[in-house]
């Protein structure tokens, strides 16, 4: 089918990039002579980097090289951070013109100092996010902190970030989020057609491919999918899941879900719905707009908020999506998630949703055991569903 073939081509482009994001971005940098500024999850305002004339590049879940970090960072730091530092230590991030590390936990808070000491980049900044987001002081402070980051970015790229430029960047990133959300909607209304792995890969590729191109690719993809919409049969008997955690890596988990007929309806990952939900205002003070978007993001373990309780949020998410169950993917050694878990589980289970928690490493994972556990969980859900 021609449509399917075209679809395959677009999807291939996303996959190709993710096969080796470092290779992709370095080639892009050479060809386009632009600066590339790396960022670590989560919540770094890519719009600000873009408005400074640099390309934001997400260092997310690249596997391998963990032992490189052993001499600098204890083994009980999460694999996400150890893996990133490992990449730097191998010299694989030397092409970066800069790096932004957001302070979201104790590990990220300490990482910058170590990194700067062992593998300094020409420009390195911490993004000192407010950890309380409920009171007025947070907003004032965050606007100030964004202002500091903006000034530092201007020093890095030598280009002024005008309000107009920033508004244009915000509009570009909003467009990306709108398109990703449309794609997500398509995915949940046509479960199992493009698959979990594919959809999450597309979200991840947004953190790598320059946004102008990513938007083009998404538009082509959505056009193709809209042509398909009527003709395709919605797959019957799939299990609807809600996922929760910091990141959804390792990607193989999504293959496991695909293989066993489970479809992810919603999540709260910083590399998932938290990344694509909520836009920044395109009018008014753009710095205020970025601050407000940050403060109003969906709940996350690192920024407790009484306004928007994470436990009820997750239970409601499962309810709205008529989920069969909730799957927690927790990065091993992620303290914020470990603290949240018991009450999160209680909340979803008392709302009637069975749950499973698995501890993950972004690489080096014993996938066989993981698959067995997930499979058993899905079978249990299937059993319940047909009672």
């Amino acid at each position: 089918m021609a449509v399917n073939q075209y679809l395959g081509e677009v999807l291939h482009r996303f996959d190709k990039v993710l096969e080796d994001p470092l290779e992709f971005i370095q080639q892009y940098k050479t060809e386009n002579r632009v600066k590339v500024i790396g960022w670590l999850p989560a919540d770094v305002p890519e719009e600000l980097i873009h408005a400074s004339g640099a390309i934001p590049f997400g260092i997310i879940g690249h596997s391998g090289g963990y032992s490189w970090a052993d001499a600098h960072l204890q083994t009980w730091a999460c694999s996400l951070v150890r893996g990133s530092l490992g990449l730097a230590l191998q010299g694989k991030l030397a092409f970066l013109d800069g790096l932004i590390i957001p302070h979201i936990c104790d590990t990220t808070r300490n990482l910058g100092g170590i990194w700067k000491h062992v593998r300094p980049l020409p420009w390195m900044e911490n993004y000192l996010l407010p950890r309380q987001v409920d009171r007025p002081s947070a907003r004032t402070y965050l606007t100030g902190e964004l202002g500091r980051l903006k000034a530092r970015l201007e020093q890095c790229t030598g280009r002024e970030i005008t309000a107009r430029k920033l508004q244009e960047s915000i509009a570009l990133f909003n467009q990306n989020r709108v398109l990703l959300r449309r794609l997500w909607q398509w995915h949940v209304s046509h479960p199992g057609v493009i698959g979990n792995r594919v959809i999450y890969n597309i979200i991840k590729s947004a953190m790598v491919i320059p946004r102008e191109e990513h938007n083009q690719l998404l538009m082509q993809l959505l056009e193709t999918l809209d042509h398909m919409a009527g003709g395709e049969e919605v797959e019957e008997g799939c299990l609807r899941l809600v996922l929760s955690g910091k990141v959804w890596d390792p990607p193989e988990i999504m293959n496991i879900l695909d293989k066993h007929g489970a479809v992810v309806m919603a999540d709260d990952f910083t590399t998932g719905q938290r990344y694509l939900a909520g836009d920044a205002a395109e009018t008014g003070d753009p710095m205020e707009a970025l601050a407000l978007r940050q403060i109003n993001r969906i709940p996350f373990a690192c920024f407790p908020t009484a306004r928007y309780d994470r436990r009820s949020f997750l239970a409601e998410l499962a309810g709205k999506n008529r989920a069969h169950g909730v799957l927690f993917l927790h990065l091993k050694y992620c303290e914020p998630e470990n603290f949240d878990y018991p009450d999160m589980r209680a909340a979803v289970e008392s709302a009637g949703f069975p749950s499973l928690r698995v501890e993950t490493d972004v690489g080096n994972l014993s996938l066989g055991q993981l698959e067995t556990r997930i499979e058993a969980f899905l079978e249990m859900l299937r059993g319940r569903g047909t009672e």
Partner: protein
Amino acid sequence: MTGRPPFVTADLLKKMMADYYARGNEARQRGVPVVWVTAVFPVEVVYAAGLFPYYPENFGAMAAARKVTDQLSRAAEAQGYSFDLCGYARCGLGDAYASEHPVGAIEKPDMVFCCNTQCGSLPKWFEAAGRFYQVPFFLLDSPMIQSTPTTLGRLYFIEQLKELIDFLEIRTGQTFDLDRLAEVMALSGEACRLWNSILDMAALSPAPFGFFDACYHMAPIVTLRGTREAVEYYRALKGELEERVAKGIPAISGERFKIYWDHIPVWPKLRWFADYFASRGALVAVSQYTHSWAWSFDPSRTLESLAENYTEAFINRGFEQRVQMKIDFMRKYKVDGFIFFSNRSCKPNSFGLYDKRNVVSRRTGLPGIVIEADMSDLRFFAEDQVKGKLDVFFHQLEQRIGGAGRQ
């Protein structure tokens, strides 16, 4: 620590702490709110408001010292709390769920206040406790100071202190008295000044007082700073130490080395470490941990001064500043070597220590090691490994001074 007469003030300490805990019960009966606070929290605000501050970290340390962390932790683990979490938090949460309370039940809060200058574990623990006890949680947020303190960070903290005061006024129905805060800060400052001068005595050779003594005598500076009792206590302790210096009673007999320790002690092995070092003729003279409470307040600038002190703690500083602070302590106390404790319960203290060890050795020429353990949970303590590392370290020290003792 062997052979010297016990501290007269130790009895006073026991009585003071017993009185303090009794006041907690009394407060509850009188309807005075019990407020959970963290060790590095502007407790002066809580004392000034006439509320009872309770320190769950003390509870964690107590459980650790009595070697029951694993027992309490298992009660938390049974609820789904991972044993990778901070040991204090596992003790506190575990005790909330446990039916047996080997160190007495943790005090139930009416409000939980937390400052994240120290770490991100405390806010998550307190937030969970807030849900468990169904009481409000208030976080004083202190972003890291990368190099020098910024106006932005200071103003943010001051703004939050005002929010805290608003919060207290609404909850208690009482107008907050800033003059009373200044009085409490003056008392707090006086206790801190005395505490600092006591810690300084470890620089004498031989010293009458060392880190392990400080770990014992620190309870009032953490818990009761801001009260008259704390001032009186440290005045008495200082007097006793001066007397010991005059009489020539050292902390350890035959002091040959002074050691810098970073940071907190391994509570359930406190005696083991103290004995080991004493047997080596080594006085652990200084640690950033016990110096954490050596603040300096200016009661004429209440909120500003609180903001400066509580945000600028070493643990909230960048890599380079923290290295420099360690080196400054090492020089001031003229240590012969240093030991960094990579504490599985404490990421902010531990991450970066491997590189800091190398930097500090390079800059000071002092030998140093990193040991791996946990401040509270013996399941993460491998005695042979730790002892092996210490043996090598002392062998190195012996060689450096040719067995002749310090000059």
